[in-house]
């Protein structure tokens, strides 16, 4: 019976795929200007063309573009181009008003503006880790002073990633020493004082927490991050050089990030395609300021008083 039944079931359940013929032409490509001026680095703008959706090539840089950054009324022409990145000899400061002007032959004028928000007003975090649980669990607490007005935050944890990695494009081993957002089994955020049950609209996207202060408008509140790490990666957390990053986002950066998360989070089968917010006139992309604080995390070990058992392996 099984010999007959299984092939029938498999034949019925099998899906049929077929390439669809269509006559849509490769439509006109757009110029894309992306720049997220941040207080911890020199400003640069990534200027590329869009690509037809059936291509999977890298986005071609706009090599004949000219870019100028205007900071509080002073012009800073780009100092050079590295691939698609146009660099400027200016490090953004909190409160700066920035305008980016780009000219591309054959295209309309491209311009956009943003303001660098004030730096997050916070104290250095305290970090505790408990390695006696099935997962290593950690708590990171800090105090954040929320200034008046609407403010937007993006909080995440980074780790240093160093060593060698196979570069499949160049087909050789690269030595890397970079910073990445690590994978945690769980990352939760609570406002512990005053106690807030939920933060409206908070989004957790691959362990990056995005929220605005609309429901927690308070001059000072305490934040607790709870996270669980896999044993193998967190056995020696000090070696990973974890850092807590708290970003204060401009309204443009918040809206853009929120829409990107919404578009990528659910997948195309369940939503209509999303038109992502852009504040770049004459092109696609985003120009949005970010003010960032970064704190290395020094974990102290938390020993539950009642436990005498050895840690799980």
């Amino acid at each position, binding site marked *: 019976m099984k010999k007959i039944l*299984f092939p029938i079931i498999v034949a019925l359940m099998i*899906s049929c795929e077929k390439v669809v013929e269509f006559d849509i032409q490769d439509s006109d490509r757009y110029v894309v200007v992306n720049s997220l001026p941040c207080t911890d680095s020199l400003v640069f703008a990534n200027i590329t063309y869009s690509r037809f959706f059936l291509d999977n090539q890298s986005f071609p840089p706009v090599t004949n573009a000219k870019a100028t950054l205007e900071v509080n009324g002073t012009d800073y022409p780009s100092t050079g181009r590295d691939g698609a990145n146009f660099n400027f000899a200016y490090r953004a400061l909190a409160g700066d008003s920035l305008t980016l002007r780009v000219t591309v032959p054959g295209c309309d004028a491209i311009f956009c503006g943003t303001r660098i928000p004030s730096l997050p007003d916070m104290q250095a975090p305290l970090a505790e880790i408990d390695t006696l649980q099935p997962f290593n669990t950690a708590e990171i607490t800090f105090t954040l002073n929320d200034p008046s007005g609407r403010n937007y935050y993006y909080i995440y944890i980074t780790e240093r990633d160093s060593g060698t990695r196979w570069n499949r494009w160049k087909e050789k081993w690269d030595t890397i020493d970079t910073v990445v957002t690590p994978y945690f089994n769980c990352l939760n955020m609570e406002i512990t004082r005053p106690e807030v049950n939920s933060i409206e609209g908070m989004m957790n996207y691959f362990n990056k927490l995005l929220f605005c202060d609309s429901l927690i408008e308070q001059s000072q509140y305490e934040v607790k991050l709870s996270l669980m790490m896999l044993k193998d990666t967190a056995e020696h957390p000090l070696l990973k050089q974890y850092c807590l990053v708290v970003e204060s986002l401009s309204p443009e950066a918040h809206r853009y990030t929120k829409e*990107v998360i919404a578009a990528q989070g659910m997948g195309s089968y369940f939503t209509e395609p*999303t038109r992502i917010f852009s504040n770049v006139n004459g092109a696609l992309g985003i120009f949005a300021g970010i003010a960032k604080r970064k704190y290395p995390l020094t974990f102290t070990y938390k020993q539950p008083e009642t436990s005498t058992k050895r840690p799980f392996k």
Partner: protein
Amino acid sequence: MILGVKKNILTIVLLLLCGIAKSQTFTISGTVIDSTSGETLIGAAVMDMRSGKGALTNSQGRYSLTLRSDSVLLRVTYMGYQAIFDSLLLKANTHRNYKMHSTLELKTVVIRGQRIDNAKSSQMSAVQVPIEQLKAVPVLFGEADLVKALQLLPGVQSGSEGNSGFYVRGGGPDENLFLLDGVPLYNVSHMGGFFSAFNTDAVKNVTLYKGSFPANFSGRLSSVLDVTTNNGNDKKIHGNASIGFISAKLNLEGPIRSERTTFCLSARRTYADFLLQPLVRKLADNRDYKLSAGYYFYDINGKLTHRFNDRSRLFASYYMGSDVVYTRIRTLATDVQEQYLNFDTKWGNIVASARWNYEITPKLFMNLTGAYTRYSNRVGVKYETETLETEEQESQQSTFSMNYLSKINDFTIRSDFDFTPNPDHSVKFGAMTTFHHFTPEVADAHLDAFSAAMMNSAFKLDTIVNQQKTPAGELSLYAGDDWSISDAVKVNYGLNLSGFLVEGKFYPTLQPRLSGRVMLGDGISLKAGYAYMTQFMHLLSTTSVSMPTDLWVPVTKHVAPMYAHQVAAGLFYEISGIADLSVESYYKHMNNILEYKDGASFFGNSEGWEEKVVMGNGWAYGVEVLLQRDFGNLTGWIGYTWSKTMRLFDRPGQVLNHGNPFPAKYDRRHDLSIVVSYKLNDRIDFSATWVYSTGNAATLSMQEYAQAQETAQEYADIDPESWRGYLTQPGDRNNFRMPDYHRMDIGANFHRQFEPREGRRPLSRTINVSVYNLYNRKNPYMIYESHEYSYKNYNGALVQLSIFPILPSVAYTLKF
């Protein structure tokens, strides 16, 4: 506004009273039933051949005909039954019941979409389909499906491949009112929409209204599907049992007390979960991992009927249908630790109703109904770990469970009256009130102390989220009259006054209905109609398939009711001895319809749903042609629809597609169905269907561009082939057409009547053989972008997924 309402009501009442004053008349009333089963016959025609006056039986099989005092010759006709002629001298009010005999010849009519009373009725845009005809349509997996058979009629479109979704004249899937014995059903789909919730064994009569709605219907914009279930045979117990490709069914009916009390019980259950168990076990056949999983659906229909006397009957109906998905996983995590994960999902309806049908006078019938409807879906997850005691540690157990529940409870009381003052008027009036109780998305989590500690207090031990309940009240009053002004002119006019109370806000609506026909000649009529409909509920759904996470929500303070105006006109022609032809055109304008904002998804989360939708308008127009032959050995129909359905969202802050009109997702220019049945002899009949429609619309994103990054290193790390690191720039909404859809299905029935043994019941059996998608057309179910294929000189391609190749099936039915 109130003055206007009063004026309208006064006008209606005056019109209703017209023509009541006549010379001395008497009323003949009674019931028309099937002589074999005792089932009442709905829509049978009772006509006085001398005066030419007549009446149709109502949904309880009752008729009332008031005629002048004279000798009358009554003719009672009903499709598939031998006509009855009855001559009498009318001197007083008379009660006459008629038992009609099924004719052998008419059993050969296998498939037919019957327009109500053909060219002579004032009702248009309505189709009444005998259930035996629906059962004969060849269908998916051999499972007779009422809704899919109705999709073959013009003006009704299906959603995606195999789906029982219903799109009527440009309306959405939530704009259809499904009534089971007069009580609304919320979820009419099983198995993600591949099957409908109606078990054809339990159904007696089906009427679909696509427009020109009579005044007694309200609550949805686009259609009303009125399904009546069997009362049960009042002579003897009999039934049928059938087994098909995916389900088994049993239907029993008979008298509890002869010709007084009857019952009808039908049950259906799929058994794919039993068949697939060996396969599932084989997939997870190892020491460390055990899996048990399955899916099934079932439904049960029950009905009790008690006849107190010829004037009074009581009906009690019950329906329960559910879909169930379950998964049990047992994992040996380590030598001393086992983990158990149970996942259970169940969703479905319960409907219970009691109806008292009473003849107050020969001219006035009453139906008093009390009903309860519940739709619920529950998702439960339970995770347990068990660690055995070792030398180094004590035994430990931890449990974590989560439940998610959404439900709607409705309590309804309604009264309906049929008043026939004379043969020229048939008046219906009544009232209905419903108390809705919406409980969307209650989630609860339970942790034991160990699990809570493990989660480091991120969760509380017992947490219940969102216990918000939304009560709402709905009220409806209606009155309507079917008035024969002359032999050539007949009108049906009425008013429906509905209101909805929610969150302290009351939405009243006055909905006029009007339709009429003019006979242009023998068998030719011209009809026209207008209907205004309002809808107070929305279905939050993300995909085109029916999901258990779809949520019904009421209108709110901020989201106003939807309403629609529809006008239709048509020509109806009985081509003598050949076929019937009808051509109908319609225009429908819909207001306050909802669409999801770009990127919005509900996927089981209605929180802040008002922020995720935009409100706008839509319009649809088209022409429907139906050529139908319902006599002889060759029967069937050809239905063709040309239509256009558009949407416009240009209100401030609620803009889609730059404020420009765009085609609706199920806008289809052409839709063609050909249904043919041929009876070879008494033992064999064949049927075939062929459908063609324009492809569904979809939104395609033509351009992709880089996502902004904070560092140059992050730009360098973007993998061009990965889904991360780039964004899409959508084109206009629904700017792409999927390939056209077409398919042929064939079926054959082989009947055999067994000679009854001494003292035994007569037995017959039918073997149904059908083939779905005979020429194995790969119709699109879903389209997506894939870089595993290439198209022309591109490194990727648009790929369509087809789910149903050629599918033969066999079903065996035993009748006793």
